[in-house]
């Protein structure tokens, strides 16, 4: 019951908060995220980081498998 009350409050307030945020952005004429070079740079940087993490984890697993057999 308490959870339902909290959820109703959240669901009522958050859309309003999100809409206000959008209006502020529109007022300052910020570029949309798909037009933003900084956004692409951030996504590509994180993808690079994940690739490095994957390579390190893969190498570790490979070495561990070889040493255990």
């Amino acid at each position, binding site marked *: 019951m308490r959870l339902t009350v909290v959820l109703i409050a959240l669901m009522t307030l958050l859309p309003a908060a999100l809409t206000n945020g959008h209006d502020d*952005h529109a007022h300052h004429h910020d570029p*949309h995220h798909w037009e*933003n070079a*900084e956004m692409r740079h951030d*996504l590509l940087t994180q993808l690079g*980081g994940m690739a490095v*993490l994957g390579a390190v984890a893969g190498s570790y697993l490979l070495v561990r498998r070889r040493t255990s057999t």
Partner: protein
Amino acid sequence: MRRSLFALMKLSFLEAVRRQILHVMVLLSLVVMAIAGTVSFFDLGVQVKIVKDTGMVMILLAGSLSIVFLLSGALFHDVEQRIVYPVLARPIPRGLYLVARYFGALAAVYAGMTLMAITLVVLLWTHLHYISGLAVVAIAFTYLEVALVGALAMLLSTFFTPAMTATLALFLYLLGSLKMGYLHHLAERNTGFAKWAITAVSAALPNMEAFRFKDALVHDLSVPAGYLVLVAIYGICYLATCIALSVWNFGRREV
């Protein structure tokens, strides 16, 4: 192995669809969307924008909150109520159990989101008599965003208690949404250790803003296809990383 995966996924799905939180979320969202779509205060152009805006926000909110609340306590309760022991006593890897738990709950949330998406499409069809391709794209990326939030909650649930997981997941989700607009500016304004710490936190946080194409849908703007592909690859890779880390941590943990 595949049979075990589907059997566990089915169990997880059935458990999730019986949870009251999912029913409340879907029902509330449908009511809000129906009110936005039927109560007419404005001319048609403004009314359609309100329907698109409200619909997309409600699908995202209901999906994100549902998946966080469903997954934050899933593993913890399985261990506490000893449900996990008879399953893991069979030749089923822990990783498979975790993946099935995740995809089962995600399927239940997707079922609710699909109901909301159909409502949005019907409302748009009633007002406009056509559906733009961008509506499908925006909804698809909302699905991907919800899957990512779920993977984040799953990862946190292998480390923390349900209450802590839900709070942290929602906090990180909010921070991830403010990453470009707030954290980057905050890092630029600080120096020394504070700048380094904010940059480090920002580098690890998922970029949630990248999945939101609500503005493009509401204002009928075009989005480059290359950017959509980049965001899709990013979302899938981040999700896979979270699941891999969850499997690793759940595998080494004592249950």
